[in-house]
């Protein structure tokens, strides 16, 4: 990061290392890399290796057999539906939290983070209480596809909201007023002035929500269960495969799930950067 010849002298040049001796920093780096390797990389490596244990045919079979293939498609579809719901609901909620004024708004703002803090199993129990077999309002959605969508929507609620909120707070109110003075309707102003600047946030929030949704497990256990060809998402399938001892199959399915999550995060990361440049 070299400053240009005309830059201020107190700007960019790299500061001396926090540990002034080169040795200190190298030790720190070694410790960090070592820690991450043991805790994270080692198990992932074992996973990838195990998935290849039966060769390509076993790998392919693990994801292409009817139950697995159905589960994979359902996982992706359900997660996609939830992302779409989150885009609308999340943006609307963020809007209300930033632009609206009413008693209890601060408390509501705090509640948004609840799905982050709440154990997933409790999320499932919570939904079951109101929308399960003993529902006080007679709605029993347990063990259905709707239950899957509801549970995923529950746990991914904060992602888009929290991504959009800060951007919305920074939106140039004067730009909106200029648009209004030029005759734009509120909706047009929203579409042409505000939305473009929200797009990067919506994209990144959606990517995080999607990655979270496809791997979700705890909230589904009690509320939706993992009924093959009905509500079984990939995480449930993998769980049952582990239970029956088919570790290679489970590993193969895991690798595919992980790869999808990484690709989505990568692609959306690029998309977010692109849209940030064109957000204006």
């Amino acid at each position: 990061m070299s400053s240009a010849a005309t830059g201020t002298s107190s700007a960019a040049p790299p500061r001396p290392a926090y540990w002034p001796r080169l040795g200190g920093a190298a030790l720190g780096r070694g410790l960090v890399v070592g820690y991450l390797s043991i805790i994270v990389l080692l198990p992932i490596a074992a996973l990838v290796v195990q998935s290849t244990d039966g060769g390509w045919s076993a790998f392919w079979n693990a994801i292409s057999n009817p139950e697995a293939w159905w589960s994979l498609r359902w996982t992706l579809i359900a997660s996609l539906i939830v992302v779409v719901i989150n885009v609308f609901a999340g943006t609307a909620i963020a809007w209300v939290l930033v632009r609206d004024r009413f008693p209890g708004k601060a408390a509501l703002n705090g509640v948004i983070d609840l799905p982050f803090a709440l154990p997933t199993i409790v999320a499932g129990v919570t939904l079951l209480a109101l929308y399960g077999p003993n529902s006080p309002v007679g709605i029993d959605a347990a063990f259905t596809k709707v239950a899957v969508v509801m549970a995923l929507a529950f746990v991914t609620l904060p992602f888009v909201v929290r991504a959009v909120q800060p951007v919305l707070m920074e939106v140039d109110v004067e730009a909106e007023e200029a648009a209004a003075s030029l005759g734009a309707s509120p909706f047009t102003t929203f579409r042409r002035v505000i939305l473009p600047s929200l797009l990067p946030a919506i994209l990144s929030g959606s990517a995080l929500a999607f990655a979270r949704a496809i791997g979700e497990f705890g909230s589904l256990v009690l509320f939706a269960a993992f009924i093959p060809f009905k509500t079984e998402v990939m995480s449930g399938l993998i769980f049952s495969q582990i239970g029956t001892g088919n570790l290679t199959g489970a590993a193969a399915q895991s690798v595919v799930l992980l790869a999808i999550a990484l690709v989505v995060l990568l692609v959306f990361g690029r998309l977010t950067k692109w849209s940030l440049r064109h957000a204006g």
Partner: protein
Amino acid sequence: MSIIVESASKRFGDFVAVDDVSLTVPDGSLTAILGPSGSGKSTLLRIIAGLETPDSGRILIQGNDATSIPAQHRDVGFVFQHYAAFKHMTVHNNVAFGLKIRKRDKDEIDQRVRELLALVHLDGLADRYPSQLSGGQRQRMALARALAVEPKVLLLDEPFGALDAQVRKELRAWLRRLHDEVHVTTIFVTHDQEEAMEVAEQIVVMNVGQVEQAGPPRELYEHPKSEFVMGFVGAVNRLGSLFVRPHDVEILHHPKPGADEAMIEHLVHLGFEVRVELVLAGGDGLWAQITQAEAEQLELQKGQIVYVRPSRGRVFDRDDGRPSGDDTPSTEELQAA
């Protein structure tokens, strides 16, 4: 504690911040390093402090090679442009920090802190937090903090840059007075030539990583060694290859040898002085600075035709901006200009 910099160089990637700089700072002096942004002045200061290591060259502090000694052990006091106050500590604890690190006795620390706060006129504010102080007060606290451990050298990096103009002026005078009292070798970095001229005993002018000239303010002003120094240290007019200070431009009503015809475009009254903006026959602009009294005596008016003659000027060699002529041009040079 005298400081000698020997051929110090420092680059960051492709950018050369300090290029073979050598200079001497006499013991107990008050020196300014003056230069525009990117001139390398802050980097040089940080090298002297031990916050940066030069790629080549040496730093000698009182005769000892300090080049490989880190800031922690160099016994230098450093004051940052944005104060670097320890935000979570009171003023007292900020100033006491260096003493606490050295495990001094508590009573001794309290006594010393009280003395220093009195010195910088912050007595009574010992229990406040930096966020409760004004910018000027924070900088004075930073100064007290640096002085607490009795450093051999005091280094200040654009110390008044973040302050209001009025506060800046006050602190300038105050720094000079402080130096008179405390007598520690002091080096400060600034891009404000007025500040350097007002405060320092010696000025080192830097440009693109090199030292252009070093010397007392008066010498730099009256005997600049290069175009750059002359232009940076004060206002200057350029007449061809002749560089003339605005107050060395004589205004006459009648033609004289060496004088050029010019029209007064503008008269700007700046209190005690008057700035006369002129345009020469060839279309070039030039401005003169005269006192109110002189302006009245000459009865100058906008649109008037007058004759201007530089009473003094310098010519610098075209190629490297270095001086080729001496101060007072001959009549031939004046006529040629």
